[in-house]
């Protein structure tokens, strides 16, 4: 019996040894009670606000939410897949609206939380706290800008808020701009926020006063407060930002911290922290296998001037081109020396093969792209131009031919992910050869959200909208001079560079922006701000168009209400105080 008691005693002793058995805590995350309580945690929290700039990024397939992907909605780009927005079939239930809404508000929520807790909890030194709060205010202003650009009037929350508090109605568009301008004014007035970080500064990528001026100028632009906008843009110049000399090298990793970059999403070669542009704008001939999910639109390609500054015209190279049917036109894009089967296929697709030159077909089409604004060749992979990619293990220079035969050397056709189609492809930001990036979905090049050329052209716009003036022309010419395009002038009407009036210059500035910012996600917002979106993008016959004008799918304008985004249907159901933008029906 003694033995038994001893055994039982031992067993119970074994059990009693872990009193806190039920107190477990995660080891990969931090409890909210400890957050913000140290200097390090303060830094981590602010870094988390910056990381909200990456929300919506998907490294597995295009999210259609990343900044550059907005080109598909504008005049400069198009979507390989049928795009609901452009086909006019999008409804307020579409994930495009809900994801954007949620991501931008997440950024605001993080900024609100940081601003409040840095002020009240963080033990960091005062000057640092003031700088960090200013950075977070800028970021909050940036996210409100994104919201207001789309929806034009959204609920404003400036404090952290919970589930039960998310019931505010929409503020007016103007009052949201005021909130943005307030935050940015706070940044500008904050002595601890630097004006600019030098290249290589450990803080490079953080918010500066220069960025705050640029973003505030943009907000004034939306308010059509031209004078204040121009004044802010002038401050950006004063801050020491300037154009980088080489338009091609500007978009390479070496120059991602050039003085032209004012505010950019920081990319490094780490999955989840890099750029996806290679993946979704590159092709199978880019290293790995990229998807060319987005294309350049022929409309913007045709907008690139001839190198003397005159307008490009197809008829000057291929007489009769514009009056042919798009299907028939494809003959001009076919490669030399087609096989019988390729000819048969081309005929069945509707090509007018009477125009085919077995030798010289390629040379003829190449003339179209010769002697043009140099930005065309730098932004776009045009027919029969070369691209320095990677095929298999080797760096291979491919040529963009049609129809595609093989990616292998010696001929090395550029292979897209959809070889039966012939679209203009993006060259800008798409890495070349194997040394420029480690992986298709985490390219290293920072993505500019605001760069100085943008500021110059917004500045020119702000001045021109006040009055037609030489100073506005001069600002545009700075951008043109960098790529060797002849300067605009208002003195010699015989030259193609002649600008006659405020309206003329307005169109020139807009075109300059269209050709300068291809693949930078700027054009769509420009067109809806200018209310030119319908005319420039939804013209009769417009669509996701192959080079010769044949649409993979057709754009459909369903009404002016499309200028404003739809409030997400689910959010209206959860917050009855939200009022839908007129015209949208579910």
């Amino acid at each position, binding site marked *: 019996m003694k033995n*038994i008691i001893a*055994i039982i005693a031992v*067993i119970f002793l074994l*059990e009693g040894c872990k009193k806190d*058995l*039920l107190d*477990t805590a*995660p*080891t*990969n995350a*931090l*409890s*909210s009670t400890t957050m913000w309580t140290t200097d390090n945690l303060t830094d*981590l*929290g602010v*870094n*988390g*606000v*910056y*990381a*909200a700039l990456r929300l919506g990024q998907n490294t597995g397939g295009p999210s259609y939410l990343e900044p550059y992907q907005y080109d598909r909605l504008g005049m400069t780009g198009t979507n390989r897949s049928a795009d609901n927005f452009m086909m*006019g*079939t999008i409804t307020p239930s579409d994930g495009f609206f*809900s994801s954007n809404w*949620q991501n931008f*508000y997440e950024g605001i929520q*993080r900024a609100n939380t940081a601003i409040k807790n840095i002020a009240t909890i963080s033990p960091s030194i005062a000057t640092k706290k003031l700088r960090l709060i200013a950075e977070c205010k800028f970021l909050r202003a940036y996210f409100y800008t994104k919201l207001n650009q789309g929806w034009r009037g959204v609920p404003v*929350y400036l404090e952290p808020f*919970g*589930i039960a508090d998310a019931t505010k109605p929409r503020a007016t568009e103007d009052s949201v701009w005021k909130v943005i301008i307030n935050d940015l004014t706070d940044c500008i007035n904050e002595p601890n926020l630097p004006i600019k970080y030098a290249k*290589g500064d*450990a803080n490079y*990528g*953080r918010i500066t006063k220069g960025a705050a001026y640029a973003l505030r100028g943009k907000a004034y632009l939306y308010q059509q407060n031209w004078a204040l906008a121009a004044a802010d843009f002038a401050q950006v110049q004063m801050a020491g930002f300037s154009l980088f000399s080489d338009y091609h090298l500007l978009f390479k990793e070496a120059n991602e911290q050039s003085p032209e970059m004012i505010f950019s999403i920081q990319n490094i070669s780490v*999955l*989840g*922290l890099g750029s996806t542009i290679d993946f979704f704008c590159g092709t*199978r001939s880019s290293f*790995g296998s990229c998807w060319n999910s987005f294309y350049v639109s022929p409309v913007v390609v045709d907008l690139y001037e001839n190198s003397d500054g005159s307008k490009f015209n197809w008829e000057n190279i291929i007489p009769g081109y514009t009056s042919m049917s798009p*299907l028939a036109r494809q003959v001009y894009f076919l490669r030399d020396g087609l096989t019988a*089967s*390729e000819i048969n296929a081309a005929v069945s*697709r*509707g090509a007018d093969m009477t125009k085919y030159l077995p030798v010289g077909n390629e040379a003829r089409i190449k003339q179209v792209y010769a002697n043009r604004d140099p930005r065309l060749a730098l932004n776009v992979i045009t027919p029969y131009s070369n691209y320095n990619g990677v*095929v*298999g*293990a*080797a760096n291979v220079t491919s040529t963009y031919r049609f*129809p595609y035969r093989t990616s*292998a050397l010696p001929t090395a056709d550029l292979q897209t*992910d*959809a070889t*039966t189609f012939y679209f203009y492809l993006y060259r800008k930001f798409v890495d070349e050869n194997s040394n420029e990036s*480690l992986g298709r979905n985490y390219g*290293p090049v920072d993505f500019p959200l605001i760069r100085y050329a943008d500021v110059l052209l917004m500045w020119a716009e702000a001045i021109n909208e006040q009055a037609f003036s030489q100073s506005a022309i001069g600002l545009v010419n700075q951008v043109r001079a960098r790529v060797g395009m002849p300067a605009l002038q208002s003195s010699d009407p015989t030259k193609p560079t002649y600008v006659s009036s405020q309206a003329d210059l307005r169109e020139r500035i807009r075109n300059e922006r269209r050709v300068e910012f291809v693949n930078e996600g700027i054009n769509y917002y420009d067109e809806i701000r200018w209310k030119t979106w319908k005319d420039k993008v939804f013209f009769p016959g417009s669509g996701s168009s192959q080079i010769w004008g044949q649409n993979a799918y057709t754009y459909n304008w369903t009404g002016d209400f499309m200028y404003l985004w739809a409030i997400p249907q*689910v*959010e209206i159901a*959860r917050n*009855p105080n939200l009022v839908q933008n007129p015209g949208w*029906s579910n």
Partner: protein
Amino acid sequence: MRLFNYRLLLLIFFATFFAHEALSQTQVIKGWVTSSKDNQPLFGASIQVLESKTGAQTDENGAFTISVKEGNHLKISNIGFGDKIILVSKGQTLLQIAVDPVLGNLDTVVVVGYAVQKKVNLTGSVSTISAKALDNRTVTNVSSALAGLSAGVRINQSSGQPGNDAASIQIRGVGTLSSSSVLILVDGIQETSLDAVNPQDIESISILKDASAAIYGSLAANGVILVTTKKGSKNKTTVSFNSMFSTTSPINVPHFITNYADFMRLMNEGYTNVNQSPIFSTLTINAWDSTSKIPNQLNPIGVPNYVAYPNTDWSKTMFQHKLLSSNNISLSGGNDMTRYLMSVNYLQNPGVMDNTGDNRYQIRLNIESKINKVITVGTQTFASTEYIGLGDVGTAFNYLFQTTPGVYPYYNGKYGFPSAPEESSTANNILFYLHSYAGKNQTSRFNTTVYANLNIFKGLVFESKANYQTWFNEQASHSTPAARYNFNTMTIGLALPSLSTAAVTQSMSKDYAIVIDNVLRYNTIISKHHDIGLLAGYNERYYNYYTFSASKVGMTDFSLADFNTVTTPQTTSGYQTDFSNRSWFGRINYAFKNKYLLEGNLRYDGVSRFGPSSRWGLFPSLSAGWKISDEQFMKQFDGWLSSLKIRASYGVLGNNASGNYDWQSVYGASNYSFNNVQVPGLAQTSLANPNLKWETTYVTNFGLDGTLFKNKVSFVIDAYNRYTDGILTTVPIPLTVGTASAPVINAAAVQTRGLELSLGYHGHLNGIQFNLNGNVAYNTNVVKTYKGPLIEGYTTDANGNKVYQSNLGQVSSGSTTRILEGHKIGEDYVLDVYKGDATYKNADGSVRINGGPKDGMIRTPNDLAWAQAMLAAGYKLLPGGTVTKSTIWYGDIVYADKNGDGSYGNSYDSHFTGKSNLPKYIYGFTADITWKGFDLYMIWSGAAGMEYYWDATGYNDNNVRNGFALSKLSVDNRYYYNDLNPSDPKNNINGSKLRLRSSDPQDHAASTFYLYDGSYIKLKNLQIGYNLPAKLIQKALITKARVFASGENLLTITKFPGLDPEMGPNVNYPTMRQLSVGLNVTF
């Protein structure tokens, strides 16, 4: 082994000795009686010679000796077992007799929580499954073998992938929105997977379906499965050897169009149908047409046509017949002090796809030793390890429909690439994905329990157990890339990727649990009639999981995969998670005159998943039974009613199925970089709910157990009501709050109700023994509370316009399957297809809104004109919007305007259909028939009353996409109408499938058009066996030898057109059909 040999020698001696006697009329037979359930010897069984009325009884080893005459019959009877009659043949001297236990018989014992109980005294709803149902099944795991065997237990195998083929188990349907997984205990210890156990080691399985599970309190809300493994038997050493070989083949495969010329024509049809250019030229189509007639001829560069001009059947390429083998040796035995069981199992399951097989080794050691009168100690220890092929099944199925017959899989050591010039270069070579990785994927388990039982004094027992169990998976894989060739031109279509991008990944995941379990039990009988049982216990468990993985890129050679040979680190990641629980529990059993039965349970549970203030919960239960047939007034029915018991139970159970740390709000990693240096960041990733607490289930059960006609017929009827409240779930939160995940809250209530019936018949006729069992269960669920009622309808907005409003997004979550108060869990929420009467116009010539096409499909010019007239009259046909070839045209469907707002098919027209993917009925049937040495066994299992929403490109919808597959389901009997040539012989205006189209804004709104009835019944198992005559085998020292042929998944009867109704609307690794032969030998 010495003992064993000695006994056999004795047998041989007897055999030869009595051989002389065989000449005379009388012969002496030496025999053994065992239970067929567990091969245990039966003591005290009576042996009667029917002709001479002489008899004998078995001794404690189950042995007997009796004198009989040739041609006499022996009747073997024993309480709890069915009678057996055996004809004595000439010269027979040795007899091994296995008798079958009878359901509902008096002494049958059932394992229940922390105890065993006589089946007749059960007051809860408990099903049992004996080893017999698992014997000789070639199934690769226990879980899938249970299908059809128990009323209300749904066994659903949704993948046949070796190593990943466990079936899901649901007891009495789904009664919660959180986890509905059942608690599994193996020899009293919680296990994460039923399939950790070697099927051949199982002695019995009990399934606790109602408040009988309450002793497990908060773990048991979804039911409990108790597995008991075999023990050795005293003084009898048994070696049994089971060997099985089976062919494997998929029970079904997707049926793609395999003739490439046909495929190309169909593709072109889909493109021209919507006014787009055809993809394929006639030249290419003709090339395939002509070469497919001369497949073996060589093309100009010497490649045979069948390779250069492929017509690949990807289903045939990917799914194959293979050979599976399973071998098992068990050794059991013991003496008065010690009993043991040892077993080894080796399973070689190649699956039905290349490089996806599973080689599994399982071992077990059960030992129990009596140290003295008081103390007994023992262990149950088992371990397994398995190696699973590295074929990339996930990617293969992801791309299975993203290829065409125009890609030849593999030829002369090379992988194929699309051959036709117009084919999408992204049409995949699926076979390659099964070969794209090499390395190792090993999963191991180890589980050991050490226990001590103390018989402190009569009736008082203390049992203590300690258990350690661990599961770990180790993987080391590297890519084995290959170039792809266009075999038509023998040129490289896709080059070999660079070594610099080739990746090597190593990962390790491990979990472990430590369990301590103590039980004090006391049983006594007071003044004859008061049978009292008391139980008190304590249990604690700690569970921990961690994982680590790292990858590098830049192999120096494709054959060198060690980390040290790879150049660039790429990713490293890892984390751990844990949880723990602690419980006290008790039970009182009381029986008066063995007729009135009462049981009460109480459990007090704490779990780490909830905050300190709400961590503990109390879970009581009560049940009662009345053996009414034992009452005097029931004796009058004795003629037909053998036994009848009424029982009722009520209990409160819990469920803690939230995340491990959901009550705490956490900041998770959200990293960024400055100046090209990565910086860690934190952001709130989940919202907290400090008040999180137990989900509570209230179960009421009424049951009736009975037997009729001298126990020949048995039945069990159960009716239950289960109400689960405070369900742990997340409800939709405003998007404005951000991306942090919604907090888990105790938000919803679900009620499930059901009826279960099991019916058995046990009898014999002309020497044929029947054992027939059927069960059927009805189950239905309804969400009782969620986020409030749905309110929708017309209101007038600020501008005086009538607008349709709905709060669906606020009160409901999901998309095509939704959660809403008053509806089923996951009820289908879709559009109706329009139904009209095809009269088109009103008397005044205006368009008649109810006069459209009868089945909603635009088939005739009148239908089309109606659609145009509808638009002209201001109605909307959505989502297509317009009537054109590329939007709504011949061969498309239009949707019903359910809410009457003039928009046909906008999102407000979706409605709750009353259907979900959970079955209303599940049923099973088993037949066990023996005749002389032969036996026949079969299991049917099925489910009915569920609907699946299935709309999948390449499998069943009408989308054609360049580079994607076309399925016969989409193509056969599709609508086609050439409106330029109404007499086109291709026209098929009565087709049941929609027209093919390359872009589709209309036909794929979620609608009833893509809802399918998923009901099925399957012949899960059929086996025919033959026990070799004792005479033949006894000379080889064998006591039992059975050969058999068996088939698994032989037949599926269903209307569901998809791969497998059990799998649902998915195309996954198919379950296997197996045809096997096997041998069981017992020494």
